[in-house]
C-alpha cells in the first residue's frame, strides 16, 4: 500500500551575488526538492538554481506596474503553499536572506505550519551582511538602528544619532501606494529625511548611499556625501542609506551605580 507523500517547505536564500553566497545546505535542498520556486530577480542566479534543479517556477511574473506589491506577495505565497498542499517537497529560493525584507517567505511558512506541515527557513547572506563587509561597519561598535525608510517616516519612531543608522529601501522613501517598481518617487521622502536628520547631525556629516554588488564584474556602489546633499541624491530600488554614528554617548551614571560600578572603573576595565 502506498502512502501519499506529505508536502513540506524549505525556504532558502541564494545571497546577494549570483552564485557564490549560497550555503552548501541551501544547494542541497534546491537539488533535492520536487519543485523550486524562485524569487531571485537575477537571470544568472536563476540559471544557477536551474542547473541544480531543472524543475523551477519563477515568481517574478506576478509583478506588474501599478499592482500593489501586497497582492503580488500574497499570490507568491499562495503559489508556494498550493504546491505544498499538493504533497510536493517544495523549496522556495529568494535572493539575499530569505527572511530579511521578504514578505512572501514568512507568509508561506506560517500558512504551511498552520496546515500542520513542516516548514523551515534557512539563513542566507543578506544585503546587511554585504554592507558590514564593504563599509567596515561593525554594528556592535556604536549600536545600530536598522529600519525600512517609509516605515520610519510614517510611524513615530525615535532616532538615536549615537547609533549607526541603516535605512533600507531609501529609493521608496515615503512611497505609500506599493504600486511603483522604480525609485522615481522618493524626492519628497528624501527631503523629509534630510530635514529630520539635520536636527540631529551637522550639515557636513558624511552619509553613505550603498548598494551591494549584485554581479561579480563590479564592486559595490558606495557614494559618500554631506547630509546637506541628501535630498538631491539618486538612489535606486536597491539603495540603502547609512548615517554613521556621532560617536558613543556618555556613560549612564545611574545604571552604573545600580550595578555597583563607577565610570572610572569601567574605563579602567576597558583599557586593561
Amino acid at each position, binding site marked *: 500500500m502506498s502512502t501519499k507523500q506529505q508536502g513540506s517547505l524549505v525556504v532558502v536564500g541564494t545571497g546577494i*551575488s549570483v552564485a557564490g*553566497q549560497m550555503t552548501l545546505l541551501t544547494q542541497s535542498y534546491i537539488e533535492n526538492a520536487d519543485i523550486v520556486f524562485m524569487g531571485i530577480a537575477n*537571470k*544568472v542566479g536563476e540559471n544557477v538554481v536551474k542547473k541544480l534543479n531543472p524543475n523551477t517556477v519563477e515568481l517574478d511574473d506576478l509583478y506588474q506596474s501599478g499592482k500593489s506589491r501586497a497582492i503580488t506577495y500574497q499570490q507568491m505565497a499562495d503559489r508556494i503553499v498550493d504546491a505544498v498542499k499538493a504533497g510536493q517537497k517544495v523549496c522556495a529560493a529568494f535572493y539575499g536572506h530569505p527572511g530579511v525584507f521578504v514578505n*512572501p517567505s514568512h507568509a508561506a511558512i506560517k500558512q504551511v505550519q498552520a496546515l500542520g506541515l513542516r516548514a523551515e527557513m534557512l539563513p542566507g547572506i543578506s544585503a546587511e551582511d554585504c554592507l558590514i563587509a564593504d563599509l567596515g561597519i561593525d554594528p556592535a561598535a556604536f549600536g545600530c538602528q536598522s529600519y*525600512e525608510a517609509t*516605515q520610519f517616516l510614517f510611524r513615530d519612531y525615535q532616532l538615536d544619532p549615537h547609533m549607526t543608522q541603516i535605512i533600507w529601501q531609501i529609493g521608496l522613501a515615503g512611497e505609500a501606494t506599493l504600486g511603483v517598481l522604480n525609485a522615481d518617487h522618493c524626492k519628497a521622502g528624501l527631503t523629509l529625511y534630510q530635514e529630520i536628520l539635520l536636527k540631529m547631525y551637522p550639515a557636513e556629516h558624511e552619509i553613505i548611499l550603498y548598494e551591494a554588488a549584485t554581479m561579480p564584474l563590479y564592486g559595490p556602489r558606495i557614494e559618500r556625501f554631506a547630509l546637506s546633499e541628501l535630498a538631491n541624491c539618486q538612489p535606486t530600488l536597491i539603495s540603502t542609506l547609512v548615517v554613521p554614528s556621532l560617536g558613543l554617548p556618555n556613560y549612564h551614571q545611574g545604571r552604573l551605580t545600580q550595578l555597583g560600578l563607577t565610570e572610572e572603573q569601567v574605563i579602567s576595565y576597558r583599557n586593561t
Partner: protein
Amino acid sequence: MAKSLVDFLEELDSNAKLKEAYLKDPVATASAYGLADEDVKIIENKDWEVVQKLFEGAGKSTKTISY
C-alpha cells in the same frame, strides 16, 4: 565556440583563482576564459548598464511592506 557570459559570471562568483585574475586584469581574464569579442568589449568598456539590462530585474526584487 565562445563561452557564455552567464557561465563566466557564475564562475567568477565561485572560483577564487578566476576572481583574483579578473581583479588584476579583467579584459585579459575574460578573453582567456573564452568569451565572445562583444562580451569582452562590455567588460573593457565597463558597460555595466548593459549587463544589468541583460540579467537584472531591479523592479522585480522583493521589497518589504512594513508601514
